[in-house]
């Protein structure tokens, strides 16, 4: 495809129709998926999609249109439609959308990979998952075994009336397994790795790193053992969360709360608002002194890492929480201008045909000093270790939360004890993070990816990362939902 000519045609049409600013994104995605369920291949798919979209700013109003057709007529129609849509919004215009400059970039970016996924045949992926599945089903009592591998390729081209021309080629891979056991009036499941699997940018090495085969039998055994495990207790206890559970805690109670569009009310109807309002910037105590969180779009391996976001802002690292104090937001060009803050490079669309919006990037908890889980257990007289998420719920300003995990262990006098099922914990975001008194070190830190974050109307999914280590929290309300 002649990117330069097509892009220029779209931008010229939008400009001629009255746009003061326009950008155009051409994209191609290819998603390869292999899934095995109970010994049979339940999903073997290879989906490709391509098209383009135009975003136009006309007298302070946004318009956006997209199409799967890629000929000149359609480029003209879509570019003109974007401007018409923007003009229609004048009917209720009380606010003029402005843009912070992103700069002019003529550049390209490619995800670094060690093993090109195309060198690993689909048949070998199938064979690997069938072996993983066999391991799970070797455990008596496993009712459903499921495992899958995803390989995602994204090629995208961005051009703007400000002169940027950016080509990017991204590769993201992930894999996971889940073992489900059904008992009398009870269902227990164990997933691995973590909650959603291991999803990162990179080549097939990401799937090799997950080590599904080595962990499949253990996951099955744990699912079955949970059916007869004691119920996790209710009350107030010290807890240690596994790194993947901390990742989800960050996603829900920090990541979403610090999306500037939510803070400004742009997501009020659906995703909600945020308790972390602008007046709290640089003063609000979000957590204890050891809590440091960054949004680092350059983080190696992290699932959201790319060279530029979908409005031409280069990847960068932005401090969100420093020594427990709120110091930053994830902002896009329009929201940053409205709130007078800096850009984060996190405005992304699900694919070429969707409107770019602020999405959680790589929101990482900076590692602490604890060298192992045992060190985190030290000093806990009576607590619970919880691993891997089973349910997650938080209010629409990101304050009141309740999370359930798949598996728990009693902690008595600093030692890991008996197995516990259905562990849950609940709290209010700032109080919870204020109770954090120990964080695992770099050796325990993983760039956990979230492949399916939902936001926006119409709903878009996005891929984010929350790098985390295991963390200890004091005096937490546990057991809610099971009598607590």
């Amino acid at each position, binding site marked *: 495809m002649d990117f330069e000519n097509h892009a220029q045609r779209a931008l010229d049409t939008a400009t001629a129709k009255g746009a003061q600013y326009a950008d155009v994104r051409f994209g191609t995605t290819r998603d390869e*998926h292999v*899934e095995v369920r109970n010994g049979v291949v*339940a*999903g*073997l*798919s*290879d*989906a*490709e*999609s*391509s*098209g383009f979209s135009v975003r136009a700013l006309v007298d302070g109003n*946004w*318009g*956006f*249109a*997209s*199409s*799967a*057709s890629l*000929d000149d007529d*359609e480029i003209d129609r879509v570019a003109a439609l974007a401007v018409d*849509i923007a003009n*229609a*919004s004048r*009917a*209720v*215009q009380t*606010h003029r*959308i402005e843009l912070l400059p992103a700069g002019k970039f003529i550049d390209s970016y490619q995800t670094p990979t060690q093993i090109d996924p195309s060198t690993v045949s*689909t048949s070998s992926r*199938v064979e690997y998952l069938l072996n993983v599945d066999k391991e799970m089903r070797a455990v008596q009592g496993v*009712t*459903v075994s499921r495992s899958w591998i995803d390989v995602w390729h994204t090629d995208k081209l961005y051009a703007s009336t400000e002169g940027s021309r950016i080509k990017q080629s991204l590769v993201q891979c992930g894999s996971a397994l889940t073992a489900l056991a*059904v008992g009398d009036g009870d*269902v227990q499941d164990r997933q691995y790795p973590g909650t959603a699997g291991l999803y990162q940018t990179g080549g097939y090495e990401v799937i090799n790193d997950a080590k599904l085969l080595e962990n499949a039998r253990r996951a099955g055994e744990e699912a079955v053992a949970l059916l007869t495990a004691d119920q996790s207790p209710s009350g107030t206890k010290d807890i240690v969360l596994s790194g993947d559970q901390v990742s989800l805690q960050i996603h829900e109670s920090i990541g979403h709360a610090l999306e500037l569009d939510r803070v400004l*009310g*742009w997501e009020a*109807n*659906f995703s909600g608002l945020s*308790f972390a309002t602008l007046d709290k910037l640089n003063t609000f105590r979000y957590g204890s002194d050891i809590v440091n969180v960054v949004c680092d779009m350059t983080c190696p391996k992290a699932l959201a890492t790319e060279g530029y976001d979908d409005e031409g802002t280069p990847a960068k690292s932005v401090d969100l929480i420093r020594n427990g104090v709120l110091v930053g937001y994830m902002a896009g060009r329009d929201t940053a201008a409205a709130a007078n803050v800096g850009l984060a490079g996190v405005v992304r669309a699900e694919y070429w045909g969707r*409107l770019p919006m602020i999405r959680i990037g790589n929101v990482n908890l900076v590692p602490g000093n604890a060298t192992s889980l045992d060190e985190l257990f030290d000093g806990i007289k009576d607590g619970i270790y919880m691993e891997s998420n089973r*349910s*997650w*719920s*938080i*209010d*629409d*300003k990101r304050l*009141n939360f*309740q999370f*359930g995990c798949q598996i728990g262990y009693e902690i008595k006098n600093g030692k890991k004890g008996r197995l516990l099922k*259905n562990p*849950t914990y609940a709290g209010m975001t700032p109080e919870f993070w204020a109770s954090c008194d120990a964080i695992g070190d770099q050796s325990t830190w993983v760039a956990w990816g979230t492949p399916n974050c939902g936001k926006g*109307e*119409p709903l878009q999914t996005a891929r984010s990362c929350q790098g985390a280590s295991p963390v200890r929290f004091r005096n937490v309300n546990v057991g*809610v*939902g*099971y009598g*607590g």
Partner: protein
Amino acid sequence: MAVDFVVDQTEVQRALDIALAASKADETEALMMGSESALTRYTHNYIHESMVERNWQLSVRAVVGKRSGVASTNRLDADSIAGVVARALEMARLAPEDQDFPGLPGDAGPLQDGGDAYDAATAELPPEARAEAVASIVRVMRRSELYAAGFVSSRSDTIAIANSKGVRRFFRFADSAINIKAIGPSSSGYAEGHARRFNDLNPEALAQTAARKANEGANPEVLEPGKYTVILEPPAFREFLGYLSWIAFGAQSLDQGSSFMSGKIGQPVMGANVTIRDDFANPKGLGVPFDFEGVPRQRIALVERGIARDVAYDSYYAAKLKHANTGHALPAPNSYGPLPLNIVVDPGSRTLEDMIASVERGVLVSRTWYIRLVDQKQTVITGMTRDGLFLIQNGRITRGLKNMRFNESIVGALNRCELASELVRSESHVLPAVRIEDFNFTSGTEF
């Protein structure tokens, strides 16, 4: 001129025919889904996002013996179609045999009538009409000294299926929706509308409902956690039933034993006043008369007068479990198995107003948020209330309440409930408000 695979039936069928003709598989299925989706979002009483998205996808399922593979593309020239067919076949040849796979379904005969589902005026609604609807919402908000956030949407969709065993289906439908969250200094109120015809929606009336709720809920008070008589309005009840559909009303969850219906077909599971159906043809619903394998959708009773009756089946689970195919397949491949997408709950006898009037002390829930499963077999969920929580005292709504978290068994709640008499569409479901006794609120939040 670009081909529009959303509206052009001839072109859609041509693409399906090319796919079938190009295939060397034992059996082949070609599924085309196209949509033009328009949505205008507003907040702070102005439009901040507005868009039209047009896309389509051709998905080809190739079958070789008892093996199958799926490939898809949105490039629909002859070469690209031949390419996707070849990829699907390559996938199928890589898959091990699935002894339970029965092959693709054949033509299962005529469709039941789901009513007139395509309104051209809705399908082609211009951005100016959506903006005017926002303007009428904003006028109500200004009169009420509030601001609103939400959306006005319209869309048209095409689903077409052909397979090598003679199935040929094409269906086009339109839909529209308005969502309003009215926001005041200390409270918010919610209203929504869904209709096949945009002109059947009344943005001003919906805005008045949302504004009234926001104003009535001003300066909310804290309610102590505990068990209360609760009335869930349809948008809140819909989330409960949507979750129940997903975890329990499909043949896969029945088969694997994780559904509360497993082993209980024919037995009482809910109150005798509860009947839950799946009915694509309800006039308030979307009216799509076949599933994603082209099989005619059947109207089924899932729970009838409290008795567990049936779940949704597709061709795979119908063959595996020796049950009639009810026409509830999702697009292949998927992890969920067949699911009912058009839940309809039979109404009760009292109006919502009468039901409120009958509550001595209780809580009215307008909308829920972030519901997640706590315990699958016991159907325990947790979630938050939002955008309109009210205290009912002596049959009257007396004040707004700060939002609460609940932990509640859906099936347990439907064993101690009363259903209201008016049916309302919420998303793709049609249902009344519901009164539930001893509803379990476990904590509160700050707003």
